[in-house]
């Protein structure tokens, strides 16, 4: 095997420009696949972290009628917590949230929003709800930066909020923006108003009602589901993000597979040409005592070595590049906001060993297969004809 390696290496280096073209393309593909998949992995990691920190924490109990995708469900999806769940609130291992639809009138325009009533003094989700704690002010309201900029809200602004109470009657209350928070989670920012839960309960007459109960991260004993309350774990709550990033990953991968296919075509072509041009050499190797299968191996190895060289070359210029990106991050703010992926504003790609090894493995495997297919022909080659420079 060592001999074949050496000979294959010499041959491939001896082939000059053609080899380096193949190597360049393949190395580019390595870097592209690893680079971009790392971006997606970073996106996923960041998205999961942001959503976990700011929104999901250790998971949530949902009222059975609550459906985040159906705002109309919010009118009826609330109830009193069970005693067990209420205990969690008291021991501060869970924070209740009441969610209602409402209308605001920024600059005289009518706008539908969601009101999230939350207990101000909590440290379960990492958003500055304690800003809402100053209750002697008029109704304190917290919004996110996106909400603020789309509606031109400043801290200190007053706004009229209209919402239905428990009997379905409209009520209008005046609120004052006490805090504009910066969060990467778009879900809790765009179109959302945060107010103290106690106030929301008072306004709507929904005493002790809750829509969603978010529990602390790392709790061991999570109460079981009841008729009214069902627990949604992190995986469930993150499924949209995970699904989205995964689908992006796949569509990205498909593009690179097309590129890889083209590169493989080039390697294939190189192999076919090499075997045709070097049939006399093949005959000579057989005359010198190599078996035909050894020669097949040799040529396969030669082709596969394109993949090895490409990995080395790719590592040479890809590693510093990737290292730099992973370290300094990439500013995706504008793109991210446009696509509603606030959590990736500053994106830090994640390059795992699995990603690198997996990519190298796939490229190596396909390059080897593509090198083997034309080399197989040597196994049935007539050495006497090959020596004459003929192909049988």
């Amino acid at each position, binding site marked *: 095997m060592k001999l074949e390696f050496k*000979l294959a290496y*010499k*041959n491939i280096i*001896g082939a000059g420009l053609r080899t380096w073209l193949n190597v360049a393309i393949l190395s580019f593909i390595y870097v592209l696949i690893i680079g971009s998949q790392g971006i997606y992995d970073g996106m996923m990691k960041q998205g999961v972290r942001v959503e976990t920190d700011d929104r999901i924490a250790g998971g949530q109990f949902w009222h059975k009628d609550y459906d985040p995708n159906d705002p109309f469900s919010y009118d009826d999806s609330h109830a009193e917590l069970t005693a067990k769940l209420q205990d969690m609130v008291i021991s501060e291992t869970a924070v209740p949230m009441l969610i209602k639809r409402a209308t605001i009138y920024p600059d005289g325009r009518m706008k539908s929003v969601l009101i999230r009533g939350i207990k101000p003094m909590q440290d379960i989700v990492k958003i500055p709800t304690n800003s809402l704690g100053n209750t002697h002010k008029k109704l304190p309201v917290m919004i996110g930066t996106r909400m603020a900029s789309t509606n031109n809200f400043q801290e200190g602004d007053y706004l009229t909020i209209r919402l239905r109470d428990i009997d379905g009657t409209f009520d209008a209350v005046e609120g004052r923006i006490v805090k504009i928070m910066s969060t990467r989670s778009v879900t809790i920012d765009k179109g959302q108003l945060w107010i103290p839960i106690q106030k929301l309960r008072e306004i709507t007459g929904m005493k002790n009602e809750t829509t969603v109960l978010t529990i602390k991260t790392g709790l061991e004993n999570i109460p079981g589901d009841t008729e009214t309350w069902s627990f949604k774990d992190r995986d469930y709550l993150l499924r949209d993000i995970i699904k989205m990033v995964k689908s992006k990953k796949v569509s990205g991968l498909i593009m690179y597979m097309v590129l890889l296919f083209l590169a493989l075509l080039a390697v294939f072509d190189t192999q076919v040409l090499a075997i045709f041009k070097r049939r006399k050499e093949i005959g000579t190797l057989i*005359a*010198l*005592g190599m078996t035909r299968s050894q020669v097949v191996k040799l040529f396969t190895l030669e082709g596969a070595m394109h993949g090895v060289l490409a990995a080395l070359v790719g590592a040479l210029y890809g590693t510093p590049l990737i290292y730099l990106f992973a370290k300094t991050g990439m500013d995706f703010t504008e793109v991210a906001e446009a696509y509603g992926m606030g959590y990736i504003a500053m994106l830090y790609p994640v390059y795992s060993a699995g990603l690198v090894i997996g990519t190298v493995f796939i490229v190596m495997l396909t390059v080897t297969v593509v090198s083997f297919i034309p080399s197989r022909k040597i196994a049935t080659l007539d050495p006497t004809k090959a*020596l004459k420079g003929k192909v049988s």
Partner: protein
Amino acid sequence: MALIELKDMYKKFPMGKNEFTALKEINLEFEKGEFAGLVGPSGSGKTTMLNILGSLDTPSEGSARVLDNNIGDLSGKAAAQLRKKHMGFIFQTYNLLPVYTVYENIEFPLLILKMSREERKKKVADALDWVGLTDKKKSRPAQLSGGESQRVAVARAIVKRPDLVLADEPTANLDDENAYNVLEMMVKLNEELNTTFIFATHDHKVIKYLKRKINLIDGKITEDMADLPGVKG
């Protein structure tokens, strides 16, 4: 026992619907240390015969025993083994490996024999010395003249001290001076190492050196003449 023994050997090639008989009724023996040649016009079957002796091809009928191996019965692997251990080939067009240096080309047969590094070093140095190319050992085939290339090929063929060297028109691409040069070298090797050489040629320069001439015409042996009495097929 003879080194090579051909008995009622025929070689036929398919040609369209028919067959073409390239070798007919070949009965021939070669002993160790011979310096013999198959002589005949183009198309007479010289290369065909050499290919069979070299286990690159098989007889269609009859038998070919080479170094105690029945060529017709050898598997591909066994034939490769036979060539690797016991045979050296010299071709009209040198057939050096283009990406290897002179040194590496000569070393190659030893590498595939998995010989140790020290042994290889010594044998390659000896071979380089025999063919007088020690100062060119780092050159690549493309940088060599035809004569030099063929000397490298000779060195490659004899470096492992094979029992049998098969040379197909080794001088056809060489000018007179180089041809004599290479031939003298082969005679020397034959005499000093007792290596058996079998040529296929129609070159008079080669024929002059042969100690035994086997004339082939249309695939048949027409004459078998040895210089020395007692060495006759």
